C-alpha cells in the first residue's frame, strides 16, 4: 500500500492540474478535453469501448505469445548450433533496427483486411526480434565457471543448454518481454489504423477523431493505456513465478 501511495497521489494531482488548466485557460475540446469530459465519454461508450479494447488486447496478446514463442525456439537453436547463430543473429540485429511496423498496411493485402491473422502477424514479427536478440544473449551469458562445472561432469550439449543456459537466459527473456508487451499493443493499434473491423481500438480512435469526437478518442487512449499496463503486469506476474530465484524478483 505504502509503495503505491506516492504514485496514486501524483496521478490524482496530475489529473487535477489537467482539469484546472482546461477550465482556467478555456482549452478547446479538440485540443485537449478535460478528464471529467473524457470520463463522461468513457461511461457513455463503455460497452463499445470494451468490446473494441478487448479485441485489440487479445490480438496483441496472441501476437506477443506467438512472436515470443518463435523467438525462444530460434534462440535455442542459435545457442545450440553455431552456424544458425552466425547466420541468424546479424540478420536479427539488422531487422531489429528497421521500422517493422511499416508492414502494417501490407499485412492487409496478405491476410485480408478483416482477418485478425494480419494483426497477429504484424505483432508477432514486431516482438520477435527484440525477444530473440535478448534471449540469445542470455543463453550465451552462462557463467564460465558454471560451464566448467558441467564440463567436469562430461554433460552433453543438450544438458548444458537445459540445465545451465536456459535458466541463465530467464532474466534476459523477461526484460525483453516487458518491452515486447508494450510493443505488441502499439503494433496492434497502429495496424488497426490502416483499416480492419470497426470494433477495434485503432479503428475506433481514427473514426472518432475523424468525427471530431475527441472525448471518445481520448477515452479509447485511456483504455489502451490500461490494457498496456495489464499486459505488462501479466509479464511481471509470470516472471515472479518463473524465476523466483533472480535478484530482481527475490524477497528475503
Amino acid at each position, binding site marked *: 500500500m505504502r509503495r503505491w501511495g506516492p504514485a496514486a497521489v501524483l496521478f490524482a494531482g496530475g489529473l487535477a492540474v489537467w482539469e484546472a488548466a482546461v477550465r482556467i485557460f478555456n482549452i478547446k475540446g479538440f485540443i485537449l478535453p478535460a478528464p471529467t469530459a473524457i470520463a463522461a465519454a468513457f461511461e457513455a461508450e463503455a460497452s463499445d469501448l470494451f468490446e473494441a479494447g478487448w479485441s485489440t488486447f487479445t490480438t496483441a496478446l496472441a501476437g506477443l505469445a506467438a512472436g515470443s514463442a518463435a523467438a525462444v525456439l530460434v534462440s535455442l537453436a542459435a545457442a545450440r548450433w553455431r552456424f544458425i547463430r552466425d547466420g541468424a543473429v546479424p540478420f536479427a540485429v539488422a531487422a531489429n533496427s528497421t521500422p517493422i511496423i511499416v508492414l502494417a498496411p501490407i499485412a492487409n493485402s496478405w491476410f485480408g483486411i478483416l482477418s485478425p491473422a494480419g494483426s497477429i502477424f504484424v505483432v508477432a514479427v514486431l516482438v520477435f526480434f527484440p525477444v530473440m536478440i535478448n534471449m540469445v544473449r542470455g543463453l550465451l551469458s552462462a*557463467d564460465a*565457471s*558454471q560451464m*566448467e*562445472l*558441467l*564440463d*567436469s*561432469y*562430461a*554433460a552433453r550439449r543438450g*544438458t548444458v543448454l537445459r*540445465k*545451465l543456459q536456459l*535458466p541463465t537466459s*530467464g532474466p534476459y527473456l523477461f526484460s525483453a518481454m516487458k518491452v515486447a508487451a508494450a510493443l505488441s499493443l502499439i503494433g496492434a493499434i497502429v495496424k488497426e489504423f490502416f483499416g480492419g473491423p470497426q470494433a477495434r481500438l485503432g479503428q475506433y480512435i481514427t473514426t472518432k477523431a475523424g468525427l471530431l469526437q475527441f472525448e471518445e478518442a481520448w477515452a479509447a487512449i485511456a483504455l489502451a493505456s490500461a490494457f498496456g499496463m495489464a499486459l505488462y503486469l501479466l509479464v511481471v506476474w509470470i516472471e515472479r513465478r518463473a*524465476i523466483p*530465484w*533472480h*535478484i530482481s524478483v*527475490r524477497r*528475503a
Partner: protein
Amino acid sequence: MTAVRLSGVDMVFNPGTGQEVKALAGIDLAVGQGEFVSLIGPSGCGKSTMLRLIGDLISPTVGAVAVNGKTPSAARIDRDYGMVFQSATLLEWRKIRANVELPLEIMETDKGERRERAEAMLELVGLADFADHYPWQLSGGMQQRVSIARALAFEPSILLMDEPFGALDEMTRERMQAELLRIWSETRTTVVFVTHSIPEAVFLSNRVVIMSPRPGRITRAVDIDLPQPRNRETREDQRFFELLTSVRDGLRAVEDM
C-alpha cells in the same frame, strides 16, 4: 597404479601475444591410487592451473597428463572427477538440495537414490536444515560446503579440491578436515588438494608438494609419515610439528628465490 601422472608439463596461456603467461614449467608429478596429495605455494604459482589440467578443463602446452591410465578427457567422460572449485559455483536458480543432486541428475541416477545421496551429503557437511534454501540465503562458507557435498555425492574416483576450506572458520574447518579424511579412508578416493594452510596440508596429506611461481614449478615434496587414522592427537604429535617446520622451510626457500 598411479591415478594421476603429469610428465614434463608446461602450460602457457595466450602464447605469442602480449598477455602470454607461463603458468607452469617442467611439471613432473605422480599421484598413486588412493593417495592424498596437497599442493601448496604462493598465490599465482599455478595450483589451480594444475588441477584444471588434471581435470581436462585445459590441455597442456607441452607434455602429457594421464589419469587412471587414460587420457584426462577419457577420464572426464568416465566421470572420474569430482571438482571443488575455488569459488562455490552453485547454480543460483537451484535450491541447495537440487545443487547437490546436479551431478547425479546429469549422470542419470534414479530419483530416489539421488534424493538419498543428497540428504546424506548435506547431513555430512552439516547443512541438512538448509536443503530448501537458495544459495544466496547461505553464507560463503556454507556455500562452499554445499559444493563439497556436491563433489562427494557421486563418489568420484579422483577428488580435485581447490582451497575448499578457505572460507571456513577454524572449528568448522577442522571438522570438515576430519570428515574428508574419514570419507577418503572409507572410499580410497585419490585426492589432489590445494591449500594455503601449512597445518591443513600436513594434517591431511600423504605428501605435500611445494611450488614456486613464475613460472610455476615443483620445488620440493615432503612425505608426511604421520600414522593413520589421523585425529586430534595427530595435531599434538611431535612429528606433526617437525613436518610443519619442514614444509614452512620449503616455502621460505621459495620466497627467497
